[in-house]
């Protein structure tokens, strides 16, 4: 019923949309970032944040602060927000909200499996996991020896199970296969999420397909750049690209054969929406690409708030908060390590 969301949306989604828009107005502004960038110590950061929505989460921290504490507490706020919304949500919004966390789940699975492979302590690894991507039996991942066991023992119970069939091999786990697994899972996840949003229809489908297409394209570019010079074959690389997005299908063919960054650039510049990303970069430069992508992503997420009666605002809010936490982490790191000149390198202003 495209165009008629206004009639019925507020019955179930109105309250939560109001909540999420309220949360959005609590995001740090440029003025906040400017002030944060001038901080001399982590205590200054805490003091500044105490006037924001992070205040209650940081106020009981004893004074010698660490970057990890700040990030942890800020993430806690995000998680609290998320849990509150999830509690209030009804179908299909609750499923939509759950979809948002699957990405973190994949990352956590990969983190634990890689960690166990390198014989790290499970508890230590668990602390590093993103709290949004936690599931019940995550600690049991350490038991698994190969993909098949991983799936059969643990993941079959999780929402990730449907994404797994493509990666099941009996071979032992190593770094390469884990990385491929991550990308295969992510591909399946994005495609599933995309399908789900299409099924929801209306403005949600319209906006989410745009946001997810961008996500898929970004992953495609990252996979290409990261796999240059590795033993990953072109066909294997091609298989890791999600089957939607602007690059699909012709761009993928071209990306699959790229051998250096400039070729990637040439492929991307054929697509008008991505031209601006490279406009600021000089040739052969790839470090700043991440930031350029983040900036573009933030811009798109902010635009999602311009339209009403759709679910993409929840996705956008979660992503914006995560970006904000990344910013805070970077600023805190820079302040803690006395590298204040580099503060602006990686901070993406949200407004």
């Amino acid at each position, binding site marked *: 019923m495209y165009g008629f969301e206004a009639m019925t949306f507020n019955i179930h989604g109105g309250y939560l949309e109001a909540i999420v828009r309220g949360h959005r107005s609590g995001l740090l502004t440029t003025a906040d970032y400017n*002030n944060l960038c*001038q901080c001399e110590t982590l205590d200054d950061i805490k*003091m500044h944040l105490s006037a924001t929505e992070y205040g209650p989460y940081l106020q009981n921290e004893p*004074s010698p602060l660490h970057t990890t504490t700040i990030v942890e507490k800020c993430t806690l706020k995000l998680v609290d927000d998320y849990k509150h919304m999830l509690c209030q949500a009804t179908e299909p919004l609750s499923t939509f909200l759950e979809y948002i966390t699957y990405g973190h789940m994949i990352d956590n699975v990969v983190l634990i499996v890689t960690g166990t492979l390198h014989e790290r302590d499970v508890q230590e690894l668990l602390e590093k996991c993103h709290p949004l991507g936690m599931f019940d*039996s995550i600690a049991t991942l350490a038991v698994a020896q190969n993909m098949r066991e991983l799936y*059969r023992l643990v993941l079959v119970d999780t929402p990730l199970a449907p994404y797994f069939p493509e990666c099941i091999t009996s071979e032992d786990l190593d770094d390469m296969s884990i990385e491929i697994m991550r990308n295969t899972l992510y591909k399946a996840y994005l495609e599933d999420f995309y399908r789900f949003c299409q099924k929801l229809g209306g403005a949600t489908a319209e906006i989410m397909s745009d946001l997810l297409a961008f996500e898929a394209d970004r992953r495609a570019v990252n996979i290409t750049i990261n796999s240059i010079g590795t033993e990953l074959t072109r066909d294997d690389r091609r298989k890791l690209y999600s089957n939607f997005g602007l690059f699909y299908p012709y761009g993928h063919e071209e990306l699959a054969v790229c051998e250096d960054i400039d070729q990637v650039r040439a492929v991307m510049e054929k697509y008008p929406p991505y031209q601006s990303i490279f406009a600021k970069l000089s040739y052969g430069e790839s470090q700043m690409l991440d930031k350029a992508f983040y900036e573009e992503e933030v811009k798109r997420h902010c635009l999602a708030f311009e339209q009403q009666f759709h679910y993409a605002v929840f996705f956008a809010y979660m992503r914006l908060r995560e970006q904000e936490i990344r910013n805070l982490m970077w600023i805190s790191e820079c302040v803690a390590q006395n590298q204040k000149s580099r503060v602006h390198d990686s901070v993406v202003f949200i407004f």
Partner: protein
Amino acid sequence: MDHFTEKLPSMDLMRSEKMTFVQIIIPAESAHRIITYLGQLGLLQFRDLNAEKSPFQRTFVNQVKRCAEMSRKLRFLMDQVNKAGIMSSHSVLQSDTNLEDIETQLAEHEHEIIEMNSNSEKLQQSYNELLEFKIVLQKACNFLVSSHGHALSEERELVENVYSNEDFVETPFLFEQETMPGPSKSNQSGLRFISGIICKSKVLRFERMLFRATRGNMLFNQAPADEQIMDPISTEMVEKTVFVVFFSGEQARTKILKICEAFGANCYPVPEDISKQRQITREVSSRLADLEATLDAGIRHRNKALSSVGGHLAKWMDMVRREKAVYDTLNMLNFDVTKKCLVGEGWCPIFAKAQIQDALQRATFDSNSQVGAILHSMDALESPPTYFRTNSFTNPYQEIVDAYGVARYQEANPAVYTTIIFPFLFAVMFGDWGHGICLLLGALVLIAHERKLSNQRLGSFMEMLFGGRYVLLLMSLFSMYCGLIYNEFFSVPFHIFGASAYKCRDSSCRDAHTTGLVKYREPYPFGVDPSWRGSRSELPFLNSLKMKMSILFGVVHMNLGILLSYFNAHFFGSSLDIRYQFVPQMIFLNSLFGYLSLLIVVKWCTGSQADLYHIMIYMFLSPFDNLGENELFWGQRPLQILLLLLALIAVPWMLFPKPFILKKLHNERFQGRNYGVLNTFEADLEVEPDSARQHHEEFNFNEVFVHQMIHSIEFVLGSVSNTASYLRLWALSLAHSELSTVFYEKVLLLAWGYDNLIIRLVGLVVFAFATAFILLMMETLSAFLHALRLHWVEFQNKFYHGDGYKFRPFSFATLTEDEN
């Protein structure tokens, strides 16, 4: 008139306090003390002069941080005290301690408590482990005995648990289970087991995971633990389940152990040998008793330490909060050029200047400063804040007005009139002296416990009720008064002021309620005659009375509102508003509805049968026709024509002149500068800075005209709809009396009709509840809301701007309330 108004005694509430903008220059050495004294005085609102600076760039940021750190420690200690359940009953009287002392003491206490906590945590952990071990021992033996029962004799020597007695206490999580190298071949396929304990909520998933990991080659036994075990992290009691897993093979063992670890299950070794089991159980029990004693001692020690701190906490918190407020205020001040003085700006009421001076002098003297602080008035661009000095009686009324909008600076304050009119209008709708007495009792209880309740933290509802206790008092008194006029006591009329003026037509009184009564003496002296009750003409009579009364109240109330707009205009010296707004408004309202009120009064006094609807309607439709039997007094027709003409003239009068005159005034003011815009750059510089502000006030005729048009239309339409709106007084009063009649007649009297104690009792209870909840609570609320609306909309829109902002002085008194 001018002389008369000036001679009136000044009333605090009529207009807000006169404010002045002051600048204080404070020598740096006495700054802290001066701000503290000003905070105690609480009559100066500081302006933030460093608004563009972020909090950590300000001067006293370190002190603020220290205070924040101290309040964090205080919160921690408070939390600990609350957790330990210690009531800080004895507050220790201590002569003034300074902040540094508190800081060091706090650090000590915090350190001490944290250390004790970590100690007791360790103890608690080992206690938990032992307790779990004990439970596992008790439960697991049962399984071992039952499952091994028959096969035990053969396999006894094959499966053996080897463990070291000393080892199990230190590392009880894992235990090595090794098969003895035996001669038999069945040794390799031997059945082994792992026993342990796990949270009850995880058992199901745990079992499933074990099943999957071993591909079903295992046996899982479980039994709920009898005792609950404290979770060391959340300090809550958790239910746990003891389990024993039987399996075979070395690989399965590592897998199972890993899964146990992942699920947070603690594994404990259980020997199969009965005698060994007994021995271990004995040892564990004795160690448990030891640990328990140690734990208790630790907790006692900790509680003692906490209770010694507990007495100070409230006082310290207060001090730290004040200190933080002082530094926050200091951060709003500017350093002057020489860096020796702080410069502060802010608003204060004029009457408080002397007190502030005094506080400054005292502070200077107390801090042994050579230079005193300087206070002087300044001009300010922005409009001053609004400040009313209220007491506990006037405060709720002021709150009622402020809830609509804070008065513009020095605007006529409707709260003065609200104090009486509001409870009265409420009572018109709630007139019943029985209900009034109930309200009065409630209000008196609140007032009697005033001292006790004001120190308590009440719920939000009670807080509201308590805050409005004097409103409630007046409301109840007025509703008793109105109830006496309506002659209703829980809807029952009483012969209080003598006998009724009416009697029955004949002695049997059969047709009293159908054909009516005969008047035989002077009218009933006060209020409604009790004989009206239940008679045929009861409703028409009361309706007519209440309806007309409502209109009279409404017209008077609205006239008062327009009159206040005159006082406003007079005060602010705007003769334009008087001539072209107040006068036509007055004429318009009174020529229509003032005239109606006059007719009502005349009709009441003469007892005429004239139809007022007819008069009012034909006054507009055919003003020149003869009134016929509806004529109430001589010369009514010419008067009506005159009034109609006046009302017609009043509309353009309030619409057109004001915007045109404003335009003319504006043109005159800027006549000389007509071509200033075209001048060159130098000409702009010549314009003196004072006039810069006036330049910004662009005069937009269209906007002013549209504004005036909206105002006029609103007033003209409003005077009709507002008058009609006052009829709610009648409607609610009618609803109230009818509702209480229903409860009285259909519940109480009906139940009383039966000669059965139970039915009577039930009827009484239902009546009591209906009266309490529906009539006393719901009806009070609805009457309150309607009275509120009549004030906010019908009364205040005649004169009240309500676009001011409140005076928020820096004061310690308000400080204690907000946090927490």
